[in-house]
């Protein structure tokens, strides 16, 4: 059944590819606007042969990794604090929510002014993107833990800190995993924005370069690679997350989670 579902997921991409090939072969769209799939494959092979592909994917992944770690760490720390403490939530959450409303691109000039145009500003921008979903999901996950479970801690004499560690944090894990996955998705979005706005390497640069030099195949290859990399990293995180929350009694196990059968 799972294999059948995986095959089902390939239907839309394959159909898209077939329509794309048909449209370009029939000359319905000029190659300067939409090159045929074969042209993309050739470009991809060229980039792989010259080492450009590995270099572009590598630097983009490196930026994303640092931004993700920094944003997730900050989101985790502040999310746990605001989730556990009503006082911290009242003090900090309105400001965080206001900052969340700021469009991502609005941060770019400020970060460039403060941190320069090199890696620090890009990584900081990615970290900002990752921070908010991680913070929000963990904070609400902790704050909304079932009171009935917390009462079990109370009747066993658990202190507030002990209840946070033993009950609230594990109970918030499913929400936290969702936050990390959303953060990772936004991280990919923000890394492309950061590289589009000022980079001399990376997948975002390939996008920009394709546009500037009138080579749509490079633009499409970069889009395809963003999509592939995003999907692969999300699958890896989903699989890791599913192991952490395999205790959940859900109707449909999340991707990568194996159902346990009642004895």
């Amino acid at each position, binding site marked *: 059944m799972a294999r059948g579902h995986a095959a089902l997921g390939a239907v839309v991409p394959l159909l898209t590819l077939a329509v794309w090939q048909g449209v370009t072969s029939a000359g319905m769209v000029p190659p300067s606007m939409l090159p045929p799939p074969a042209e993309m494959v050739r470009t991809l092979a060229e980039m792989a042969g010259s080492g450009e592909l590995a270099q572009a994917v590598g630097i983009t992944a490196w930026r994303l990794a640092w931004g993700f770690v920094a944003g997730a760490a900050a989101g985790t720390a502040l999310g746990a604090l605001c989730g556990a403490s009503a006082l911290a939530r009242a003090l900090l959450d309105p400001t965080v929510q206001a900052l969340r409303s700021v469009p991502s691109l609005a941060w770019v000039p400020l970060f460039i002014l403060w941190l320069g145009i090199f890696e620090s500003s890009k990584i900081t921008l990615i970290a900002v993107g990752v921070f908010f979903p991680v913070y929000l999901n963990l904070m609400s996950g902790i704050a909304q833990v079932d009171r*009935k479970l917390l009462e*079990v801690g109370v009747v066993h004499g658990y202190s507030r800190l002990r209840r946070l560690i033993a*009950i609230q944090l*594990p109970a918030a*894990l499913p929400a936290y995993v969702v936050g990390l996955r959303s953060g990772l998705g936004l991280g990919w979005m923000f890394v492309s924005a950061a590289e589009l706005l000022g980079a001399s390497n990376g997948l975002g640069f390939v996008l920009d370069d394709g546009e500037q030099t009138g080579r749509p195949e490079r633009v499409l290859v970069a889009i395809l690679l963003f999509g592939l990399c995003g999907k692969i990293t999300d699958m890896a995180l989903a699989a890791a997350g599913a192991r952490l929350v395999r*205790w959940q009694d859900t109707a449909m196990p999340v991707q990568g989670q194996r159902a346990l059968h*009642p004895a």
Partner: protein
Amino acid sequence: MAHEVHIAGLAKTYGSQRVLGPLDLHLDAGTITVVIGRSGCGKSTLLRCLGGLEQPDAGSIRIGAGQLRREDIGYVFQEPRLMPWLTVSRNVAFGLRGHPARDDRVAEALATVGLHQAASLLPKQLSGGMAQRAALARALAPEPELILLDEPFSALDPFSRESLQQHLLHLHRHYRTTMVLITHDMDEALTLGDRILVMQGPPGKIVADLSRQDTKARLREALEPGGRCPPGPPAGAERPQTPLTVRAL
């Protein structure tokens, strides 16, 4: 070791509404006291005050010679309330952190409730009856001096309920722990209670003090709104076993 429980002037108010008391009670060591009453009469509030989940507005609760301590009390809720991320054995060990004989206590509690073969299962793999057994084992493992049970079997099917009731009686014979059980099931009250306190409210007040030997008809009569059982023997007198023991408070 079982301890008697003294409750003096216990009262609880939510907002402007008094929901409980003032209540004076003395529970004998090693007995099962059942508190029965209609929904909303304040019986769960009484139990929550005893368990430290609610802060009473007035009054005191004392177990044995000392003041109430959390570790003296085991609590079984209406739902199992197992931590879904912990295995059965780790759930049972929940109240035993840092205990030198933790593993032994867990194994003993699991064996007592007949769940030793389910130790490594997750709560989602348990039936309702098994989950409630695990909750009972969690309450028993620290060997508390007082066990509070808040309608612990009400969500179970009749077969599981009867089986767990017999299990509870067996455990009580084994440990002689003082127990207070909340229920609205008359059969359960008559099956389990050494002493059956009928509560009416709000505010929750004990209107009759019956025993296991009483008939269901007498219990129903006491449960009627505004109803009181005929006076029984004077307070403090030894309760006769037959034919009927009713003490109006």
